[in-house]
């Protein structure tokens, strides 16, 4: 089995949890339990979860709040974001258009709030899915406004600490700072925070769309929170209603899956299955009906199909079908 994974040099880890226990866990090509990995757009699912936490804390009253109501200093006449609601950002249906992304343009176009909010609209809000990093970055800016702290700091206090994420097994925070874990190279589109493993924009705002680093086991904790409908150790970390709303299909993507609040909904492939997906094969597949989840990390490559395609089609789905047949 290990030999098989070594054939694809891009795969760094595979992990399977069932009924709360790890039943399969392997690391390849120098990766390990204690090595942090850029999770790329899995970051979006974490940012979405933080909106759920903010709802629980009553820092946000409703997802139907207009985007511009969070930024009262902005003159709505300067843009076309007037009808955009928070839920449109989360479902990537704002209708606003961003320039094609690359290392320079993301940082350039997030350099000022004015510039982000003044993007032109191509569609009515809520109508058309368009994959857009800046929409989810805006969610991070909203979170900073309502919490009075950076999104990363909010995550640490209200989501990661209860789950034991960014802690070692003795509960010591920031294990990468005292030699108990090592960090990945920072995401190339963002800037380093300096202390936390989550990239920032030029203004120091936590990037909502990417730039977070987690270990495979921490990714599994995050997925397990969703499998358990937002409950962790007797506490409702994310409201169950928000978890349920997050895994409902609001639009269709070009990847053959539907999209919820930063989760891909796989109901065309399998009922009640959903996926957090990051560029290059970072993924968390939640299968609550089987009390199961699957995590993978990999080296992103542009010139080849992502590493997870084969692993899902020829690995996970046959495994799931075999389990169901038992």
């Amino acid at each position, binding site marked *: 089995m290990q030999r*098989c994974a070594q054939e694809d040099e891009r795969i760094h880890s595979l992990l399977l949890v069932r*009924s709360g226990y790890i039943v399969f866990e392997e690391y390849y090509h120098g990766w390990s339990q204690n090595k942090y990995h850029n999770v790329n757009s899995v970051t979006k699912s974490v940012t979405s979860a933080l909106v759920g936490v903010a709802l629980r804390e009553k820092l946000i009253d409703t997802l139907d709040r207009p985007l511009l109501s969070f930024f009262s200093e902005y003159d709505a006449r300067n843009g076309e974001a007037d009808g955009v609601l928070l839920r449109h950002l989360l479902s990537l249906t704002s209708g606003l258009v961003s320039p094609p992304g690359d290392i320079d343009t993301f940082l350039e176009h997030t350099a000022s709030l004015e510039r982000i909010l003044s993007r032109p609209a191509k569609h009515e809000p809520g109508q058309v899915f368009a994959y857009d990093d800046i929409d989810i970055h805006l969610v991070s800016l909203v979170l900073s406004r309502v919490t009075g702290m950076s999104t990363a700091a909010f995550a640490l206090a209200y989501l990661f600490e209860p789950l034991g994420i960014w802690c070692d097994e003795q509960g010591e925070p920031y294990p990468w700072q005292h030699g108990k874990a090592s960090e990945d190279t920072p995401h190339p589109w963002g800037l380093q925070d300096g202390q936390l493993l989550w990239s920032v924009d030029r203004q120091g705002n936590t990037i909502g769309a990417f730039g977070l680093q987690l270990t495979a086991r921490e990714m599994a904790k995050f997925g397990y929170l969703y499998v358990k409908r937002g409950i962790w150790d007797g506490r409702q970390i994310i409201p169950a209603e928000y978890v349920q709303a997050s895994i409902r299909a609001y639009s269709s993507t070009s990847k053959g899956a539907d999209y919820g609040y930063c989760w891909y909904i796989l109901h065309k492939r399998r009922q009640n299955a959903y996926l957090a997906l990051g560029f290059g094969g970072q993924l968390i597949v939640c299968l609550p009906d089987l009390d199961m989840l699957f995590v993978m990390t990999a080296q992103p490559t542009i010139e080849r199909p992502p590493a997870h395609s084969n692993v899902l089609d020829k690995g996970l789905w046959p495994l799931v079908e075999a389990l169901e047949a038992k």
Partner: protein
Amino acid sequence: MLETKVGFSVYFSKCYKKQSEKIVIFEVKGCFAMEQLEAYWPTSSWRTVAPQVLGMQPADFATLCARG
């Protein structure tokens, strides 16, 4: 009754007894084995378990790494 090779780690003493060169797991499939698992939250760390305890076989994972 399900047989598995010696050398595989089985954590739940109620579930098995050693018979010469084999460990025999009773009623691995279904609820009996799952009832032996202690409920916990992996806040500090995840726990691992032999897949047989949950009615799975190591061979079930062979497809995970299959390549086309």
